[in-house]
């Protein structure tokens, strides 16, 4: 399979797992692999219909699904997070990101789950 076929399959597998878990037709409207100039890279699954309550109740499951999706694309699942529309219950995307050193410091500085109003950390492997 080429990269687009892998992404396509990855998107639908993750979507189906979320639908089975949450019993509603969560829609992953787009899944992208990305590489940023700073050195960060990873995948983003843009979501519609996924809400903060879903995440709070099923956080472990969703984190596990995202980890599996990440591994399936050979992306180390060292930092998994959801992007939330600030001040709302709407989750815009699920993300697996391999952080560059600078961005790692930005995200690892605090110990809570929300280093920014729009970020909800599902897991972060702390470096020594």
């Amino acid at each position: 399979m080429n990269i687009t076929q892998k992404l396509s399959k990855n998107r639908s597998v993750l979507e189906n797992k979320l639908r089975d878990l949450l019993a509603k037709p969560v829609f992953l409207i787009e899944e992208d692999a990305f590489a940023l100039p700073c050195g960060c890279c990873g995948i983003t699954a843009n979501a519609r219909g996924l809400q903060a309550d879903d995440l709070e109740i099923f956080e472990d499951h969703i984190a596990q699904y995202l980890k599996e999706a990440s591994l399936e694309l050979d992306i180390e699942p060292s930092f998994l997070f959801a992007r939330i529309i600030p001040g709302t219950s709407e989750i815009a995307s699920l993300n697996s990101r391999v952080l560059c050193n600078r961005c790692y410091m930005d995200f690892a500085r605090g110990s809570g789950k929300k280093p920014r109003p729009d970020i909800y950390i599902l897991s972060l492997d702390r470096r020594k």
Partner: protein
Amino acid sequence: MMKLYVPHVGHMEGLQDLLSGPDNIYAIYMAGTPDYVGTGRTNLGAPGIEEIREQTEYAHDKGVKMEIVLNSSCMGGQHLTPQGFNKIHWYFDRLNDIGIDSITVAEPYFVEMLSKDYNMEVVVSVLSFVDSPQKAEFYEELGADTIVVDPVVNRDFAKLEAIKESVTCGLKLLVNEGCLYQCPFRYAHFNFFSHANGPGPKLNVLDDYYYYKCLSLRINDPQQLIKSPWIRPEDTKRYEHITDTFKIGGRTHFTNWILNNVHAYTNRDYDGNLMDLLDCPRDIRDLFYIPNKELKGTLDQWKQCNKICSDCGYCKRLTERIVRVYSVDDMQSTLQPLKSTGGST
């Protein structure tokens, strides 16, 4: 004969595509230059005055009318300043010189201004939210030649008939807007668009909150798809005692999508997914399947509906019975019943 107003993205190539066939297009409409008056929806094109002139001439050569949509629902008071008034008046002068057939506006001040000083047909936008005979009378008094009725009353025939009785100006119905019925975000969202797509500083917006909520509400409660006050192509004939003029929404879509709508509404027939025809919830077109043919007869129910959903449940039952969800397994897309994918109707 149905008069169909058809959206156009705003560039000459798109217009040539749109008017290349034998379709029965009465008029096309597009946004103007956002430097003067914005619009209440997103736009792909921002044609300048010369581009509008060229495209108007092309449309007229094809026997098609040209309408410019300047339906900002919030001008932030700019139009009331001397500078703002002069700038907008200058722009209206230019459009008048070009020979534009009609201008759609939402701002009441523009309705009066256009009706007093220009010969162009003055069209009151859906974003003026005319949903009652009283409001229709106000706008007619201000100078409206045509009112595009708020789709919220598209299925309320008593209200439509009362509006028809109360005014002598033309009425136009928007058939495929696809917005939520009684949407709580309607005013705020259109005001946001008006600022984002109008003169003045551009907003640095992270996310369109209203659009996220709009989609999320439907995914979590798919009966909202059915309650949305669209008009099926087959049902347009049921509105002929109200008007013969219909408008297709969707000026950010590809020409192919627009022409699919034109064919459906001119033929008054569509055998496929109703979601294909709706303008607004575009992002979930690949999520839900609503077989249009299975909606036959629904208007009879909605014509007598008192809109108290908790007492009725018709739309809920209909949703459970006919709406399906696209699901992809092993790279193959299949349709699943709503219940199997959750979806609390």
